[in-house]
């Protein structure tokens, strides 16, 4: 029988509902969903779990690189007048440090978690656009390598992560360095955007039947909000970098002082970057909102408030960008407005902080490593948040801006609200991903070394700032009164790095020798814990049907209302399929056909990389080759399908 026969091409069907018991014959689903073995299969995989793990591993690698860069900087700054680095080396290092951390670590790591977790939490078999998912990963990798290729060949960007013009223009920064950054960022922007679109559509369409909006775990709200923001904010920075590249290469006049407007850069950059700093913490805050209650043995206090806080933080986040430009000489009226807006943004953050604290107080916390990382995040968030409030006061910021006070603020927020939750999240979800638990004893050491090291290293930055130490200086004279504290900062950083090292050791050891986890080692309440650890490629044997916010806690919470149905649900085994539900109420209204593995995302990425490399080196033939590759990949990608992917594997 020809599987491409249009008579087998269904327009509609009643999805079969089955109840599974212990020995569900998963081979059929397994066969349809699994990735071919071998390199080709690896390149073409669209499994969200694989992609998620790739994201996490890659982002972690960039964290280590960025961290090593920081440690070298800390050696240079450990005492006055050091000459470990030349000024230019230092400048490239702090720029690469910021870029690596903000763009190549902080955001992708969360994308990785969301990629891995979303379909599991949603009771779905994959994301809405599995191939887009693969594309987003490959482009991210390409962009990271692109920027790092510049760095290792001596063309590292050296104007900080916000890359102010006119310094970034050809006159002051000749060479390829800024072009590497500009084009790399445009490439990365494509990755972020397609990833964000994927999350939005997945959220709207791929929730388990019955998972109405008020039953969606907070992590998903966090990523959704961040994604919506990215869709709107990323074009701003891509455009800014594009115009920068045009100015540098084609003599346009967007930013030069004579005919252009240097301040336009700052507006475009911060209109993107302020929303972005929330985009790289809201999903992490979501992890805490979902993880903390598990250990407190009670549902999150104020679920609705926390969700509203998440969304409104983001909404306000679009209206405060000028607080990064307080010293640019804008008139006082707008400055006061942006000052006020920045104060107001404290309110949703405060709500979330209070809800978490209340969850601890009204729950019965069980102290595990993951719990400690989540709980300490509350404290670090408050420290980072209130220093933001001090700088939000425009008059104070005129003194504080561009000093180490800001460096302290940004590390407390970024490390406190991103890195700590992320490490906690790995302790929490590692068993799900690998089937094994991380070692708790080593975990405790890991936590305390990191926590103490972090505070020793970064608290003194506040006072250094108050004592006037400017940021982005490669050295300082001995008579400024900063030497002792800088030494403490450097030592604390080293301790913090040792903490990170302990974490790596724990992962390496536990991967092989960790305790078996079982499906639900923490007795958690959300759907990802309903399937085995690690989950099968198809995630769920049947698509569960959800009746409450905590489907797995209904028993333990003695929920009187209706119960979710985990073992009885839609089977969907006529090809790679999952159920599509209505955006608001989560009522099933479509059987979604999922694509099979495909090399198109990888080929498309190769095409884009060629195009961007060609543009960087001004080899226009390379650009043409890139565009042709892109075109062919896209045509292949969108080629109308007549058969459900995966069906041929089982029905041959």
């Amino acid at each position, binding site marked *: 029988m020809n599987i491409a026969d249009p008579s087998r091409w*269904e*327009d*509609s*069907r*009643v*999805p079969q*509902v089955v109840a599974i018991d212990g020995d569900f014959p998963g081979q059929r689903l397994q066969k349809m969903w699994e990735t071919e073995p071998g390199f080709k299969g690896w390149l073409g995989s669209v499994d969200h779990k694989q992609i998620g793990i790739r994201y996490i591993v890659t982002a972690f690698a960039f964290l280590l690189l960025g961290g090593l860069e920081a440690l070298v900087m800390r050696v240079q700054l450990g005492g006055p007048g050091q000459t470990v680095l030349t000024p230019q080396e230092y400048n490239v290092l702090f720029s690469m440090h910021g870029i690596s951390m903000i763009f190549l670590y902080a955001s992708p790591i969360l994308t990785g978690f969301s990629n891995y977790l979303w379909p599991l939490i949603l009771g779905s078999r994959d994301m*809405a*656009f599995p191939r*887009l998912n693969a594309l987003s990963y490959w482009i991210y990798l390409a962009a990271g390598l692109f920027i790092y290729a510049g760095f290792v060949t001596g063309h590292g960007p050296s104007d900080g992560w916000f890359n102010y013009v006119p310094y970034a223009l050809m006159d002051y920064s000749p060479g390829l360095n800024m072009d590497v950054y500009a084009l790399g960022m445009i490439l990365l922007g494509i990755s972020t*955007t397609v990833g*964000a*679109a*994927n999350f*939005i*559509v997945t959220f*709207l*369409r791929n929730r388990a*039947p*019955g998972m109405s909006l008020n039953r969606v775990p907070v992590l998903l709200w966090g990523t959704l909000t961040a994604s919506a923001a990215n*869709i*709107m*904010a990323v*074009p*701003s920075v891509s*455009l800014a970098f594009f*115009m920068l590249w*045009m100015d540098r290469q*084609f*003599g*346009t*006049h*967007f930013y030069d002082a004579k*005919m*252009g*407007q240097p301040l*336009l850069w700052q507006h*475009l950059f911060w*209109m993107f970057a302020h929303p972005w700093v929330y985009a790289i913490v809201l999903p992490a805050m979501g992890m805490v909102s979902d993880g903390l209650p598990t250990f407190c043995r009670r549902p999150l206090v104020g679920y609705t408030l926390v969700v509203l806080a998440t969304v409104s933080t983001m909404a306000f986040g679009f209206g405060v960008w000028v607080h990064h430009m307080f010293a640019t000489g804008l008139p006082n009226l707008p400055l006061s407005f942006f000052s006020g807006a920045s104060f107001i943004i404290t309110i949703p953050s405060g709500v979330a902080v209070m809800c978490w604290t209340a969850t601890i107080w009204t729950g019965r916390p069980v102290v595990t490593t993951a719990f400690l990382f989540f709980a300490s995040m509350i404290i670090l968030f408050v420290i980072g948040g209130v220093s933001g409030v001090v700088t939000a006061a425009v008059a104070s910021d005129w003194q504080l801006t561009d000093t180490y006070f800001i460096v302290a603020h940004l590390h407390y927020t970024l490390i406190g609200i991103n890195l700590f939750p992320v490490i906690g999240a790995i302790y929490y979800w590692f068993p799900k991903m690998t089937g094994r638990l991380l070692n708790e004893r080593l975990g405790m050491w890991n936590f305390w070394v990191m926590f103490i090291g972090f505070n020793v290293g970064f608290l003194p930055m506040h006072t250094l700032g108050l004592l006037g130490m400017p940021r982005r200086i490669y050295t300082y004279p001995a008579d400024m009164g900063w030497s002792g504290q800088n030494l403490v900062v450097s030592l604390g950083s080293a301790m913090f790095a040792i903490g990170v090292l302990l974490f790596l050791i724990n992962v390496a050891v536990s991967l092989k020798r960790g305790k078996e986890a079982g499906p639900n080692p923490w007795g958690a309440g959300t759907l990802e814990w309903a399937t085995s650890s690690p989950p099968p490629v198809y995630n769920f044997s049947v698509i569960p*049907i*959800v*009746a409450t916010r905590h489907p797995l806690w209904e028993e333990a919470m003695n929920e009187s209302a*209706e*119960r979710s*149905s985990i073992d009885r649900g*839609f089977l969907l085994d006529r090809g790679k*399929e999952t*159920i*599509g539900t209505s955006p608001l109420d989560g*009522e*099933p*209204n*479509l*059987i979604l*056909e999922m694509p099979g593995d495909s090399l198109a995302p990888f080929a498309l990425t190769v095409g884009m990389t060629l195009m961007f490399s060609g543009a960087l080196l001004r080899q226009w033939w390379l650009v043409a080759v890139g565009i042709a590759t892109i*075109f062919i990949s896209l045509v292949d990608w*969108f*080629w*109308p399908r*007549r058969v459900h992917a995966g069906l041929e594997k089982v029905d041959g």
Partner: protein
Amino acid sequence: MVDALVTDAPLPVGSAGRNSTAWFGMLCLIATEGSLFAYLLFSYAYFGAQNSADWLPTLHPSFKYGLPGTLVLFSSSATIWWSERGMKRGARGQHLIGLIATILLGLTFIVLELLDWRDKGFSLSSRAYGSFYFTITGFHLLHVIVGVSVLMVVLGWSLAGYFTQRRHMHVTISGVYWHFVDVVWIFVFSTFFLAPYVIAL
């Protein structure tokens, strides 16, 4: 309630028009591209606000190519709509004619735009206005070119019989994209061709 969700009504499979994920995906693309043009026009407006009116090369830009271009684009929106309607009604002829007409109109626009570029007395690098003019219209032109290419591929698939009255997601989705490109032009056109006249008043 859980049982109420276990439907026994048949559910559409796969690409069901506006319920398909691809439709939602296209809306996301449009949102982000729309933002891109918003930022472009914001940047232009920022320059306008920071400079005096002599920033503009002329307060009376010529409509010689802009106006015909606008009409051409508008009518192409109509033809693509008509073409998709044909698809939905099963009128294959109408669908194909509409699609081809749209492609031809799109190509005409590209030619008109290039003629307009040739006529300008400034260049990309001669003044900031020129940088904006060519960048913004260039971005739009790029979208038209992409749109036309997409429609051509869709035409190929359509001729090869890949679509049916019920399964023609590609047609629907490329259609929205085309409408989007047209709407963007309204903003670009108003900014560069109409607004100077208003300033001149």
